[in-house]
């Protein structure tokens, strides 16, 4: 416990000197302009582009801290505690959601997607008839064409007698 009376006596000169600092003030003209400047700054702040979510969150937290939590060391403790609570709530929520709809493994094997099938489907209504179309269709998906849309058959039963493997111009 401090001896207040003794301290006051001891520090009276210092306290008198400190009291003179009350007089250190700008002129009244400065204070007449404070309100105007405050309004100007408020207007400037209102037209500034909105910051990102994180920036606004941090700014909000700092604002709350400066208003409510005077000790800087406690601010971090509060922030950590807050994050821990959020994490706990988040984990709890995900756990509850997970227990209601547990993930299951499907035993069905999926057929690989056959790109050629789509082309063959597109060709099917037109009844592949010409030789060129048959060859094109077969090159896309011969199995599909053989099974469903086009009956398997030879394009040509035998080579014609006039067939010439060489080409002449």
């Amino acid at each position, binding site marked *: 416990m401090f001896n207040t009376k003794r301290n006051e006596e001891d520090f009276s000169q210092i*306290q008198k000197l400190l009291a*003179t*600092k009350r007089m250190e*003030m*700008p002129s009244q003209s400065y204070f007449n302009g*404070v309100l105007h400047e*405050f309004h100007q700054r408020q207007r400037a702040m209102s037209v500034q582009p909105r910051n990102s979510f994180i920036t606004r969150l941090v700014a909000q937290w700092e604002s709350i801290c400066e208003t409510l939590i005077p000790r800087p060391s406690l601010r971090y403790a509060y922030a950590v505690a807050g994050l821990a609570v959020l994490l706990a709530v988040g984990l709890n929520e995900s756990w509850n959601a997970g227990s209601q709809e547990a993930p299951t493994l499907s035993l069905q094997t999926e057929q690989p997607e056959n790109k050629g099938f789509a082309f063959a489907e597109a060709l099917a209504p037109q009844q592949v008839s010409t030789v060129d179309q048959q060859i094109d269709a077969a090159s896309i998906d011969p199995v599909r064409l053989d099974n469903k849309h086009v009956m398997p058959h030879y394009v040509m039963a035998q080579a014609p007698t006039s067939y010439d493997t060489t080409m002449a111009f």
Partner: protein
Amino acid sequence: MEESPPPSPEPEQQPPDRELVARTQAGDSSAFDQLLIRYQQRVYGVIHNMVNNHADTNDLLMETFSKAYQNIHSYKADAAFYTWIYRIAVNQTINFLKRNKSRHNISMDDDSEDMESQKEFIDTALSGDVERQNKISELQKKLNESLMKLSEQHRAVVTLFDVQGLSHTEIAKIMGCSEGTVRSRLFYAHKQLQKNLKGYV
């Protein structure tokens, strides 16, 4: 319970702080203007005695009132408005000083001269003969230097107690610490100032 009135009480005719705060909270920004006008000098004094620089004080004064206006809905009437605004000012200033420690140390060397040269500063102590003026000026410079050597927390306590004239209880609420801590800091700060001003007082 309402706190004891601030050092320079508000005029009788003007509405009390609580009413002005309620009107501000209801969306009447002109009520906040009245609060600003009412407290600007006292808040300026708190900040200026901690940063010892007019430009920084002006910025911090604006930030303080801006924060107060933005967070006026979080103000609870269980504490006096001036305690609340002082708290914002002190916290803003301490944060500012911590952020700008290196820059601050440099600027403080020039600031005493800066303050003396500022014609807009009124110092009623500086009246009389030239020799006396010089002595007082030198003493004030030395006092400012000694104050700047204190930590932000100790400087805040000295400013609030010795310059602003607040009680230990009020300072404890503003600083968010116990009265014992306030007394302890005050004792230490006075001791340091006395040591640094040895030969002057």
